[in-house]
């Protein structure tokens, strides 16, 4: 539904070139909710603005619903008629709602229809339908200033849907809202996605947003997509940073000479008593250092950090057993969690701060020091 290839955006500011997007290839399938997550300055905002060409990419192409928008736009700086028509079929919601305070709620929803040249009676009917859809039928005559943040965002969503778009872009739509309201807005987006078959591309810095509604996700760092896939794929990818973030498990080994594993359960395996089987079959004592269970994209998933006595070499067979049961088992490097781990963590933090400061970092390779603590995948 949305495909970007080699999307690059370079800003010139006071003679300095800043790369916000560095060859982003993204593919959003029809009917899915796709989340792009990253810290501020990672380029998410530039990315979503390039999708409807509010910002012109320096190079690369954007295709939405089979139309190559970058070709449509031509070379002019201003949006031509074709591009404007294409934009009217892409809804967009904003972090700060961007409602016109001089218009009533209903008139705000009618605005895109006015632009499309819909007649007065039809506009009015459609606006009321949409307000009903987002649960604000009774607020039609209110002004945005009289609404709460969540209500404003509902109006923003109704407005974005006015032109019957197939695609909805959400630019940090819930970042200005409290957790409760965030949940209800995400639920609304989820419902619309299912009811209308709407494809949703959202950007966020909150992992919870991805957890609650995304079918697929991508992680952005320094203008690049470093990981991308469906949530299930990501969780099944050893060493995936997103999976690790979605499911943080922590816990330190009780002492040297033991083997620490991160085990991920999903699907069938989640309901099997695998750990006790492991313990009985091999007659070993297993300590659970940390664990988490959650629902991601409507799927029950669990993650656990366990400790087996003895070094890795002695535990090859039990680990093989876990893998046979359909679990994912990743070895946590013993020293990564101890001293070296702390050092690497501090470095990563410093990096993140530098990113935020520079807003958009100058072109840099994805640094090795940001690599996850899981250094080695166990061979099957």
């Amino acid at each position, binding site marked *: 539904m949305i495909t970007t290839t080699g999307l690059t955006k370079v800003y010139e500011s006071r003679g300095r070139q800043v790369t916000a997007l560095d060859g982003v290839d993204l593919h959003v399938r029809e009917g899915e909710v796709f989340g792009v997550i990253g810290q501020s300055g990672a380029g998410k905002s530039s990315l979503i603005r390039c999708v409807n060409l509010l910002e012109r990419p320096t190079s690369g192409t954007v295709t939405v619903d089979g139309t190559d928008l970058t070709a449509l736009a031509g070379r002019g700086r201003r949006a031509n008629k074709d591009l*404007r028509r294409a934009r009217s079929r892409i809804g967009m919601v904003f972090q*700060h709602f*961007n409602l*016109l*305070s001089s218009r009533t709620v209903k008139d705000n929803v009618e605005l895109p229809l006015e*632009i499309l040249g819909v007649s007065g009676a039809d506009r009015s009917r459609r606006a009321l339908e949409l307000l009903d859809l987002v649960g604000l039928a009774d607020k039609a005559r209110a*002004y*945005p*200033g009289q609404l709460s943040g969540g209500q404003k965002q509902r109006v923003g969503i109704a407005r974005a849907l006015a*032109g019957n778009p197939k695609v909805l872009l959400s630019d940090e739509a819930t970042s200005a809202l409290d957790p409760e309201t965030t949940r209800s807005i995400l639920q609304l987006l989820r419902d619309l996605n299912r009811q209308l078959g709407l494809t949703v591309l959202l950007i966020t810095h909150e992992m919870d947003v991805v957890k609650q509604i995304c079918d697929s996700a991508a992680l952005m760092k320094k203008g690049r997509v470093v990981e991308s896939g469906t949530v299930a794929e990501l969780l099944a990818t050893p060493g995936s940073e997103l999976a690790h973030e979605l499911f943080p498990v922590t816990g330190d080994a009780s002492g040297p000479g033991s083997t620490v594993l991160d085990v991920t359960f999903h699907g069938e395996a989640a309901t099997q008593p695998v750990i006790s089987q492991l313990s009985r079959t091999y007659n070993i004592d297993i300590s659970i250092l940390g664990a988490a269970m959650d629902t991601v994209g409507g799927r029950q998933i669990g993650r656990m950090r366990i400790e087996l006595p003895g070094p890795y070499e002695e535990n090859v067979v039990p680990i093989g057993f876990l893998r046979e049961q359909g679990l994912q088992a990743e070895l946590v490097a013993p020293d990564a969690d101890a001293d070296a781990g702390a050092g690497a963590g501090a470095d990563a933090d410093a990096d993140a701060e530098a990113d935020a400061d520079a807003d958009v970092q100058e072109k840099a390779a994805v640094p090795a020091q940001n690599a996850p603590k899981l250094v080695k995948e166990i061979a099957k």
Partner: protein
Amino acid sequence: MSWSEMQPLLTQGTIDTLYMVLWATVVSVIGGLPIGVLLVLTDKGGLLQNTVVNKVVGAIVNIGRSLPFIILLVALIPFTTLVVGTFIGPTAMIVPLAIGAIPFFARLVETAIREVDHGLVEAVQSMGGSIPTIIRKVLLPQALPSLVSAVTTTVIVLIGYSALAGAVGGEGLGAKVITYGYQRFDTQFMLVTVVVLIVIVTVVQLVGDGIVRLLARRGRTAS
């Protein structure tokens, strides 16, 4: 001068002043509004970014604003004669008054439009709105309270200018004060006229503020 002698002078003066100021305001708004919008749009980062146009228009506006009004008044005599056929009388005064106020109003418009949140412009762009649509549906309606304030300020400045116009063959309260109050040393008449001017200015300000408050309230309390 007795009150019965003053009254017709004051009435005629007030009518002439209001006539000049009203039409000069209409012309300044029609002339200044597009210039103000143009200054914002052509500015760096604007929707129609164009440094050359921006600098040239900005320079003209600045020149217009830095000329003392009395100089403008005299300098424009040939132009006024060309447009109106004469350079004295209230109708003729509308020309220099409007030309003096256009740059002033244009700057006020510029400031008002600049205050409109860029996010709103972006939202309308994302709906496929063209630049005229953005001006008509976002910039002007959102800036309306500030624009009304700008008109109020312009009217008051024009009342001041119109008094000055009295010195160069204009009519109105200013001309009356100069003729009777200043040249004939009639302090009493001068004071009465000043009071009338104060009343006019106060009423204009109150009406303007009232409209602004009405517009601003739309967004907050129940409609």
